[in-house]
């Protein structure tokens, strides 16, 4: 029988016809960031023609400045984010001139040694991509193998799909992604999860950004056994180890965040500590720094605890003294012979252990 003549209020004329419209069209008006991201070209009388005009109407520069300010080192990572932001701006200019642009694939893999900031950057990436207008909602769903892979036959697919549905419109962060694939067990359900992931990564590129993270060598093995995964990830970001200076800066920021500061000589003591610690096995970059500072805080606490009758000032409570750092076990061993020794030691940094 004939279809009725009335139409849902607010629906477009074409949407009322039987031709299925692109769901992306409808998805954008609800997104908060769409005002600047998808900038409707129709109702703006003057379309920006220069990069400066586009930058003025979006928060791209603020995002980049914030990134520079908040994260120490990580130059290649920052450069890649800059490139992505630049592409967004240029895409917008192209769109204004009527050139259709396909949204770029933004799936990423983060590889690097322990404690180089992979998880930290991933957490921020969702926010960054949202502000740049690439993802609609900008939330981050962080999962590991347990959340994707089921316990028995037929359990994996619904589990993986549920996680994917939750991550739609945002970023799906798979930490230690190499655990998904267990070559030693050919009936492992991880492979099924990988297949579903690949399918969604390919078909719903606009809805979801997937970030895989893991230690470099194991991720290499993972990608070698899953060439499909490797080729669908456009951005392979390698997180370099921090230099000593960067680690010191990280230490200072960590202390400042917790309302502590270095006492006299403590900063130099930490620098010497780091020089020795880097040469030792299981060095985990920023994570080792955090652990060292936590131990220093413990020593500071017991040092103050011992002086029962002393009135403690704000200064006392905030200061990590040189002795708190010098008491470390690291100083007990022999000093590294030369400074060049620490440089060559970097290559031998273990990726296993001390990862928790």
């Amino acid at each position: 029988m004939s279809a009725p003549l009335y139409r849902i209020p607010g629906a477009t004329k074409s949407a009322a016809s039987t031709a299925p419209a692109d769901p992306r069209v409808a998805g954008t008006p609800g997104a908060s960031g769409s005002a600047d991201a998808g900038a409707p070209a129709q109702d703006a009388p003057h379309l920006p023609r220069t990069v400066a005009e586009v930058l003025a109407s979006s928060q791209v520069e603020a995002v980049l400045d914030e990134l520079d300010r908040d994260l120490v080192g990580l130059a290649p990572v920052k450069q890649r984010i800059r490139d992505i932001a630049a592409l967004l701006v240029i895409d917008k200019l192209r769109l204004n001139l009527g050139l259709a642009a396909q949204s770029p694939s933004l799936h990423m893999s983060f590889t690097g040694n322990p404690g180089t900031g992979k998880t930290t950057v991933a957490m921020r990436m969702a926010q960054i991509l949202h502000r740049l207008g690439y993802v609609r909602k900008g939330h981050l769903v962080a999962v590991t193998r347990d959340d994707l892979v089921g316990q028995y036959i037929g359990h994996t697919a619904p589990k993986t799909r549920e996680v994917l549905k939750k991550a739609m419109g945002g970023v799906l962060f798979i930490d230690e992604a190499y655990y998904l694939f267990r070559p030693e067990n050919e009936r492992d359900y991880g492979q099924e999860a990988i297949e579903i992931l690949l399918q969604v990564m390919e078909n719903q590129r606009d809805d979801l950004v997937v970030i895989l993270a893991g230690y470099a060598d194991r991720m290499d093995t993972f990608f070698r056994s899953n060439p499909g995964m490797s080729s669908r990830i456009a951005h392979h970001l390698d997180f370099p180890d921090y230099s000593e200076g960067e680690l010191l800066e990280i230490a200072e920021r960590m202390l400042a965040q917790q309302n502590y500061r270095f006492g006299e000589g403590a900063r130099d003591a930490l620098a010497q500590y780091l020089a020795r610690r880097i040469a030792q096995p299981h060095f985990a970059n920023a994570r080792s720094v955090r652990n060292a500072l936590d131990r220093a805080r413990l020593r500071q606490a017991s040092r103050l605890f011992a002086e029962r009758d002393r009135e403690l000032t704000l200064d006392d409570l905030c200061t990590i003294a040189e002795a708190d750092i010098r008491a470390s076990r690291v100083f007990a061993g022999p000093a590294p012979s030369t400074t060049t020794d620490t440089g060559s030691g970097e290559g031998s940094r273990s990726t296993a252990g001390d990862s928790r």
Partner: protein
Amino acid sequence: MMTNPTGRLTQGQFSFLPDLTDAEIALQVEYGLNKGYAWSLEYTDDPHPRNTYWEMYGQPMFDLKDAAGVLMELADCRKAFPNHYIRMLAFDSAQGVESIAMSFIVNRPKSEPGFALDRQEIVGRTQRYAVRAYSTGRPENERY
């Protein structure tokens, strides 16, 4: 019937309107998600108005942020049941409500033969009426 000139099943929201497109469904889903509803899908091939509980397709989707996830599930359901009625439900978990806040049909069989009115004469020439869907004459899964 004059009250339903198109002969289509009219249950839930928007059922007198032309079928919603995917874009329009996405808008509705987005609206529900912003209100904090959990969407779910149900299907059936028994369109009787008193058939309240349809079969669930998958589990209700809690903690979603974006309509794309719900539409992905809908695409799966349509693939599995191209000739069934499929409806979307939004569950409002707010305390004191805890029930379905929205519901509309998103998929229909190609032809909908409609309903028959059965009359039965009982004692004292009293008439008893019943509504019966033509399609339910055949066994399940062979109806449309």
